[in-house]
């Protein structure tokens, strides 16, 4: 009996090994074909690829990648001790999931050949035809692969921004499913509409340099929908402890600010004067907003707070994102200050009045900041800064303001109702919210069987 079983196992093992070798051999052959194709592309395109531009965009992609772990620490510091790992985990697992989604089909849906102005087709699935050759429509001086991986980091961080709204109460499996579906059904269409060739908002003439609509309004309004759908945390608002580790949050905000140079200046898609201009506008708006929030805190809450300054800085950086490639330094200051004023109102007065529990103010900071910035772009954009852009209201072009307003409205409606719909679907497939018991014990232990901190060494 036993010998017979062993022989069967051996046979199965040999079969499996054979199949594995066959698979490897065939994929190697495929890889050789692919390598040859890429080399051909490169040869055809080499005169047009600019090494400086390519170096900058690849580095910028790295900078934007670092924003997701940065966001993890920003959010992680703001939750209670018992949930710190769950927030870090959600950010990092999104980096894993969406990186794969993007190369397999997300990039094709977002930037591939247009279907009806709202989505790409699947022609570029698994990066088919996307290689070392530049795509002249998107970035004519860098390999399309560089543009693709730069955009991948945007697709990663945007769903990560949302989780601030439902932190401390979502089941991990449901979260993974929701994030994958959100990236595919909400992010990819909005990204396509605003940035891709043939996208209907792009055709309309909307200016969104680095993602005011695509990233911030999109994530912010989805966050609001998610917070409303999931409901409040137990004990909200009075029995929720304050942030468990503000120094973590400051570290995270610092990494976000640093990464934002890749986000905005990288969106120039070249090592150019425009990149430098966007870099300056970004830093200026973040600084003005951090200072403005400190002043608001001082005036209305008695003392300037560290938490306030980093919140303001992130709001200002979010707001300047759509405008960064079209404005000079003075509008950047105005946008920064306006972002802090409106986000301060949203996070302190509106949230309290309406009573929704947006745990970490993903809507109050990114949603409001994105709206302020996208509309401000309609006011301050200048062709003197970026000839490829447009003039705004103060340069005598009211039409741009209307276009920006249309883009804001479209994004707000699609993100909000789309997310409500997705939440309903995911909740029907698998329960979204953790049990009352699990919420009390904390997500670190109940979702991951880990603890962020130990009592003894």
């Amino acid at each position: 009996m036993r010998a017979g079983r062993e022989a069967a196992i051996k046979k199965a093992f040999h079969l499996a090994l054979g199949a594995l070798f066959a698979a490897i051999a065939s994929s190697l052959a495929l890889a050789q074909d692919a390598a040859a194709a890429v080399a051909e592309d490169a040869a055809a395109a080499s005169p047009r690829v600019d090494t400086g531009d390519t170096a900058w965009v690849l580095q910028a992609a790295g900078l934007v990648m670092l924003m997701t772990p940065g966001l993890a620490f920003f959010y992680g510091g703001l939750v209670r001790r018992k949930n710190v790992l769950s927030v870090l985990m959600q950010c990092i697992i999104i980096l894993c999931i969406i990186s794969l989604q993007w190369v397999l089909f997300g990039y094709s849906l977002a930037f591939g050949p247009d279907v009806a102005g709202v989505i790409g087709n699947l022609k570029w699935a698994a990066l088919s035809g996307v290689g070392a050759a530049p795509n002249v429509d998107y970035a004519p001086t860098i390999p399309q692969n560089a543009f693709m991986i730069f955009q991948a980091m945007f697709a990663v961080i945007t769903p990560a921004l949302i989780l601030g709204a439902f932190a401390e109460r979502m089941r991990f499996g449901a979260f993974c499913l929701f994030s994958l579906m959100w990236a595919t059904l909400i992010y990819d269409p909005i990204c396509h509409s605003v940035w891709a060739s043939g996208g209907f908002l792009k055709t309309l003439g909307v200016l969104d340099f680095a993602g005011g609509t695509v990233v911030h309004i999109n994530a912010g309004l989805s966050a609001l929908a998610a917070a409303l759908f999931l409901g409040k945390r137990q004990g909200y608002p009075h029995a929720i402890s304050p942030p468990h580790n503000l120094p973590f949050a400051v570290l995270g905000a610092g990494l976000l600010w640093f990464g934002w140079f890749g986000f905005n200046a990288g969106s120039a898609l070249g090592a150019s004067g425009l990149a430098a201009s966007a870099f300056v506008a970004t830093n200026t708006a973040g600084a003005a907003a951090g200072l403005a929030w400190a002043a608001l805190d001082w005036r209305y809450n008695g003392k300037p707070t560290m938490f306030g300054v980093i919140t303001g800085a992130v709001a200002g950086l979010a707001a300047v994102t759509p405008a960064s490639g079209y404005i000079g330094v003075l509008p950047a200051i105005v946008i920064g200050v306006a972002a802090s004023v409106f986000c301060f109102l949203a996070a302190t007065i509106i949230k309290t009045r309406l009573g929704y529990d947006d745990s970490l103010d993903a809507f109050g900071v990114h949603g409001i900041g994105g709206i302020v910035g996208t509309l401000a772009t309609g006011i301050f954009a200048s062709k003197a800064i970026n000839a490829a852009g447009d003039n705004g209201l103060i340069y005598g072009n009211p039409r741009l303001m209307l276009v920006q307003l249309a883009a804001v409205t479209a994004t707000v409606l699609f993100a909000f109702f789309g997310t409500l719909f997705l939440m309903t679907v995911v909740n029907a497939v698998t329960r979204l919210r953790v049990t009352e018991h699990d919420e009390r014990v904390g997500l670190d232990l109940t979702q991951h069987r880990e603890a962020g901190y130990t009592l003894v060494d």
Partner: protein
Amino acid sequence: MEYVIAIIQPDRLDEVLDRLTKNEIHLVTVSSIMGRGRQKGIAEVYRSHKEAGSLLKKVKLEIAVNEAYVQPTIEAILAGARTGQIGDGKIFILDLKECVRIRTGETGGMAIG
């Protein structure tokens, strides 16, 4: 044997430890704790949301002593921890039934010192 528990202001810890050393009391356990008394807490503000802050940070000292050292211990704590303001803390003195030194198995007065 007595067991002395003192709740003091965190910033008085170094002074109290110095005074205890001067009075030849070297064995002490210190923990960082939260507590409240007649002194009101300081409200904290997070994104404009005020936390009532009914608990304050305090330091707890626990000292097991033989009878002869009870008074010097109390004097050292009083001298080191008193500022004259509300919130200086309290000293509790309890009878201690037994004490065992883990390393040697000694008990009672021998184990305490």
